[in-house]
């Protein structure tokens, strides 16, 4: 089977090239690399998705090209040339952006292991295709695809630049002949690897064959694994429905006789044959019909009488005839009729798991159903959902009524889409809807009266993604609204905070924390899609775009750019840390994760000791009612200070109240002076005397003169002291006191007052000056 390599450079796909493609010297396949790039170049550039040539391969080519040509046999020498040419080609291609050579490292011993490991690791993120001629590798990749159920391919590169994928039989044959060859050559390593591999492969192949035979016999459609690994995607896209723009004529009920029930037989018709089936005990009753098991993992939906209509019959017939298959989508595979051949329902694979509504759309239920799940698991659910939606959209099928009762999920995070009969295709509208998931442009009119546009479908997709990540909360929920869903959607006032667009109306509870921990890119997409001022409000992201974004989200959760450890929790208890350097610590009381709060004024982070809950549980001060970590006598420090301390009326100092007498501290008490008996403040007192008395005490007693120098020598205080001590008051300076200076003899002393100045011609002043000079 031939495939176009251009399919594998689409977004979400990756194309790899192995060494041997470059080293092939067969002239019949010359120039095929060039053709390959010619086919792919446009898409590669458009999607920024270059072909990958791992580092290990480059190493091998480089090693080959460096070998000296001289003395080598012809084929080896041309191999060296080939390697050189290949490296040149790769350099050129890299500079044009068609190839990337930078992935991987130099450590893997064998390049074939490298590819298998890479494919294993990324199977759930990308569809991958490897170009190689090594049979062992082709077989291993085929088996990996079979065992994981993911789209992984390996094939050879034809002359024309197409990918040739061999059939099972082909691979088996070639593998067996290689084994024989290696056994002859005595290559032990290869034999040891290839022999068990072929045995497993054969077993796998045998199971496929048998399964095919069994299913064909039952008259229902093929569900062979080969169909999947050979990617019917390509065939399917060519098989898509027409993108209709006209609404069909209104629906009408069909006249049906007997509606079969449990235990009865029904007829089935499909492109691959017909048959009969017996209906088992009903599995569930929906709004429109009942679902019965019929064995083998299949179920039959039988409609209620009023829901057997022309539109449903035609829709189901169209879907059955196309024969689409996809794991996780319950495509109708056969029309079901009653014994009289009247349409009553259809056959589909049984969906696994339980409704979103019962499992992940309510925190209590979610914690019960999947207690170990982390955010990354919810992201996986989103990716699983998106893959299927994208599949349907590329076939021009619009789901129409995306809601949590039409989607199931199991513990393996696989999403199942049911209710195919409500899809919109080829002009047959989706007759039902759920207001919570209905875009503003479609609200207010009956669902069956018009065709849903892709824009409206994308609204439902975005809403569903939001509600999966935020386990059941409605995107437009807002504090201060009156709960009217239709009006909330029409107003377009998305309340969750994004960048500066803070809306004070985020709903109460932990929802805002959950929102804050989403990856910034995802938040941006949600905000711009839901908020009426957002730039995606009228051109919402497609399923493919969401798929890329969510795959990136998954990588981000595991990477180092995600610096907040609780961003992988489904129910974080606080906002996300602002930046990589924001302090993240634990509450002193209960240990829950806390994050520092940025104060733009002080430009630092504030780190309160307790989380809000513990803060609330802290004991309250009896006086002021505020919470405090430590209370003394039931009161916080502030109130205690208030209570126990007061300001002294005298000096204003803060003193303990029980030390205050008459509102005064001990320093400011009124006491009586020991000397004069007057009241004075203690602080002003010294030596038991009031300031007045004290200064008096320092004054020299002028009535007592030193017997030697005749001048006052002793302070009043000193006199009093002697008197109090019943000691004789000294009558002179202490011996040797420098102040004790013998007086000037009396004769030379002129007593001014005793002898008034004679009436002389000279003025008093001049005589004074003269005296002064002479003395």
């Amino acid at each position, binding site marked *: 089977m031939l495939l176009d390599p251009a399919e594998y450079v689409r977004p979400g796909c990756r194309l790899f090239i192995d060494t041997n493609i470059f080293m092939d010297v067969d002239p019949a396949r010359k120039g095929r690399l060039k053709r390959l790039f010619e086919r792919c170049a446009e898409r590669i550039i458009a999607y920024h998705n270059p072909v990958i040539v791992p580092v290990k391969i480059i190493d091998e080519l480089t090693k080959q090209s460096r070998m000296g040509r001289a003395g080598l046999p012809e084929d080896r020498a041309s191999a060296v040339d080939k390697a050189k040419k290949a490296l040149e080609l790769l350099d050129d291609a890299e500079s044009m952006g068609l190839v990337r050579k930078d992935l991987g490292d130099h450590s893997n011993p064998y390049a074939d292991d490298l590819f298998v490991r890479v494919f294993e690791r990324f199977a759930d993120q990308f569809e991958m295709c490897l170009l190689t001629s090594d049979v062992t590798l082709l077989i291993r990749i085929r088996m990996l695809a079979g065992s994981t159920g993911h789209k992984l391919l390996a094939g050879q590169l034809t002359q024309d630049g197409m990918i040739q994928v061999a059939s099972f039989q082909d691979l088996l044959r070639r593998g067996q002949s290689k084994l024989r060859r290696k056994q002859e050559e005595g290559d032990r390593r290869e034999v040891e690897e290839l022999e068990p591999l072929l045995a497993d492969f054969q077993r796998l192949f045998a199971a496929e064959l048998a399964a095919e035979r069994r299913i064909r016999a039952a008259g229902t459609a093929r569900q062979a694994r080969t169909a999947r690994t050979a990617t019917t995607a390509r065939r399917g896209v060519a098989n898509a429905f027409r993108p209709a723009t006209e609404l069909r004529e209104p629906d009408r009920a069909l006249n049906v006789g007997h509606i079969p029930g449990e235990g009865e037989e029904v007829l089935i018709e499909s492109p691959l044959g017909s048959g009969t089936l017996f209906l088992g005990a009903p599995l569930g009753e929906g709004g429109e019909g009942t679902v019965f098991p019929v064995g083998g993992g299949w179920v039959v939906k039988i409609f209620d009488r009023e829901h057997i209509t022309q539109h449903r019959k035609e829709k189901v017939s169209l879907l059955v005839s196309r024969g689409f298959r996809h794991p996780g989508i319950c495509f109708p595979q056969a029309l079901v009729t009653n014994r009289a051949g009247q349409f009553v329902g259809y056959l589909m694979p049984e969906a696994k798991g339980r409704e979103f509504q019962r499992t992940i759309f309510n925190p209590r239920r979610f914690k019960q159903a999947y207690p170990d799940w982390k955010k990354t698991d919810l992201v996986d659910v989103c990716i699983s959902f998106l893959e299927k939606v994208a599949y349907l959209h590329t076939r021009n099928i619009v789901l129409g009524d995306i809601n949590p009762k039409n989607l199931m999920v199991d513990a393996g995070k696989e999403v199942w889409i049911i209710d195919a009969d409500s899809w919109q295709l080829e002009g047959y509208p989706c007759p039902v809807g759920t207001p919570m998931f209905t875009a503003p442009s479609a609200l207010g009119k009956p669902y069956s009266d018009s065709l849903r546009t892709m824009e409206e479908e994308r609204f439902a997709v975005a809403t569903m993604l939001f509600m999966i990540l935020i*386990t059941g909360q409605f995107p437009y929920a807002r504090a201060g609204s009156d709960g009217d869903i239709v009006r909330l959607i029409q107003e377009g006032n998305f309340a969750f905070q994004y960048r500066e667009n803070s809306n004070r109306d985020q709903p*109460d509870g932990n929802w805002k924390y959950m929102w804050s921990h989403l990856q910034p890119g995802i938040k941006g997409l949600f905000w711009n899609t839901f908020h009426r001022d957002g730039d995606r409000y009228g051109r919402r992201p497609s399923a493919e775009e969401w798929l890329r974004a969510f795959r990136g989200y998954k990588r981000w959760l595991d990477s180092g750019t995600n610096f907040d450890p609780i961003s992988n929790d489904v129910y974080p208890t606080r906002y996300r840390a602002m930046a990589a350097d924001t302090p993240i610590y634990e509450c002193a009381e209960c240990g829950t994760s806390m994050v520092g709060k940025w104060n733009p004024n002080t430009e630092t982070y504030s780190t309160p000791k307790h989380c809000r809950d513990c803060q609330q549980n802290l004991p309250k001060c009896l006086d002021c009612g505020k919470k405090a970590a430590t209370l003394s006598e039931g009161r916080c420090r502030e109130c205690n200070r208030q209570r126990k301390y007061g300001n002294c009326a005298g000096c204003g100092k803060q003193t303990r109240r029980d030390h205050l007498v008459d509102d005064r501290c001990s320093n400011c008490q009124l006491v009586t002076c020991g000397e004069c008996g007057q009241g004075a403040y203690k602080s002003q007192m010294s030596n038991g005397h009031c300031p007045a008395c004290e200064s008096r005490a320092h004054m020299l007693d002028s009535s007592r003169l030193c017997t030697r120098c005749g001048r006052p020598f002793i302070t009043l205080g000193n006199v009093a002291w002697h008197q109090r001590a019943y000691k004789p008051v000294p009558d002179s300076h202490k011996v040797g006191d420098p102040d004790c200076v013998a007086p000037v003899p009396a004769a030379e002393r002129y007593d001014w007052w005793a002898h008034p100045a004679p009436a002389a011609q000279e003025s008093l002043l001049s005589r004074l000056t003269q005296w002064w000079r002479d003395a």
Partner: protein
Amino acid sequence: MALKVGSDDLVENPTPRVPVSLCVDTSLSMEGDKILELVRGVNVFLDTVDGDDDAHDAAEISIVEFNSVARLIQDFASVDRLQRVNAITPAGATCMGEGVNLALDTLENRKAMYSGSGVLYYQPWLVLMTDGQPNGSQAEFERAVQRVVSMVTAKKLTVFPIGIGADADMAALARFSPNRPPLRLKGLNFKEFFEWLSRSVSRVSKSTPGDTVKLDLSGLAGWAEL
């Protein structure tokens, strides 16, 4: 502490709520089997709602009794925080107007709390059950009727007026329900009524606010659509 649990409960559950207000007559005329059956019926209602997955998350129930005065027995709460009703001793007159007004006031408070927190809710239900004639204040009665009728017309309330027994004043009840005639309970078949009521709650909560829900018809002619 209890208050904190309540607000967590309200806010953690994103399911759109169905507020159901039971407004019951406990006047003297209800003495005997009537009151016993009524209490049993209410408890059956609570049990059935508790047992139903969908209704369990959505229903919020309040109970108002009226005799000579109106009293709130139970403020709105989700079913797992409700205790079953104990026996009630009927006595006194039938102050229907006061009872209905109290029920409506409680409802308004609850709606304010929903709005404040950003919780979604459906059109509330008022279940009014009486076996006699209203003989409370005329002014109160008129005010109650006016409030109910205006809310029903604005599609902000759904009313189920139920008459118990032969003496029930159906005309008075009819004044509360402008669109549909009031229902007379068959004998003392409270249990059947309340089972139907809880199934209806479940159906409403399975749909999404704004849908019209088809109620199960059996035995309740005139109540084909909500």
